[in-house]
């Protein structure tokens, strides 16, 4: 199941890239994808069935983009104003993500959101160390935000 998923994903990728949406091209993309997966098949951990997750994905996307815009604006304001409003700090965030892929995706998403940046994962894989620009008093709010982001993502990929 996982193999098929990746294969299709890669084939799609191929079709997008070539920009020619013929059946044969898709087939060829499938072939190319197969080759690539053949190359790395030992290394890709299992993934579950994926079709259900498309609507969730779009919901998540809009949420994420909104976050992105908001925090961008927040940082922008701080940058252009002469004094610093920010209260940066490194905070430990206990995540619910378990597998490596989950952790990575969560971490990347957190990093992509302005104002937060993942510096490290604890060795027992339970917590992320997040550098946040606006920590200060909003510590709990921030952790809550992170949690929401993580949950939405996990719903898609689990």
């Amino acid at each position, binding site marked *: 199941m996982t193999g098929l998923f*990746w294969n299709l994903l*890669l084939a799609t*990728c*191929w079709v997008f*890239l*070539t920009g020619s949406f*013929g059946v*044969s091209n898709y087939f060829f993309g499938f072939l*190319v*994808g197969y*080759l*690539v*997966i053949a*190359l*790395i098949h030992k*290394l*890709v*951990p299992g993934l579950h069935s994926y079709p259900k997750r498309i609507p969730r994905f779009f919901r998540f996307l809009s949420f994420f983009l909104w976050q992105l815009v908001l925090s961008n604006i927040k940082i922008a304001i701080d940058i252009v104003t002469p004094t610093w409003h920010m209260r940066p700090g490194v905070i430990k965030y206990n995540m619910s993500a378990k597998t*490596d*892929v989950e*952790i*990575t995706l969560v*971490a*990347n998403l957190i990093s992509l959101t302005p104002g937060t940046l*993942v510096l*490290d*994962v604890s*060795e027992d*894989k339970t917590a992320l160390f997040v550098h946040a620009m606006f920590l200060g008093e909003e510590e709990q709010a921030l952790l809550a935000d992170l949690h929401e982001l993580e949950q939405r993502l996990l719903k898609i990929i689990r």
Partner: protein
Amino acid sequence: MAKPKNISADSLILRTATLIVLPVQLVFSLFLLLRGHDQPGGGFIGGLVASGAFALYLYAYGVYALKQLLRVSPKDLLAIGLLLGLVATIPSVLVDQAFFTAQWWEISLGDNLIKLSTVLVFDIGVYLTVIGTLVTMFTAVAEAQLEES
């Protein structure tokens, strides 16, 4: 602040992300290779992208993992690439034309026409050579430094 000791140089995030990015890079490199005749790309560019992918893997997992991933020795890759490049020069001689004269074979697959040519073979040779080159270099340097330390 003193540099903390006993902290692993490996990063879980980098390692896992590499697994996601690597296939994308490889697919893209093939894509660049194959459509280079019409759009930006070609064997070099494709090969460089693929090499970048392997370099990423090297940085994330180390040199032995990379060798396991490749299965063939990078020098073999190099040799295959070069030989493919050379092979591309030869078919024309068989039909009594100058060396390197491009030979095109069109294979119809359903209603699609697939154009195969010595040019493509040559470009694939270039692609493999570039990969072989860079991977040879990276693995050689990394291995030597591993042995040293």
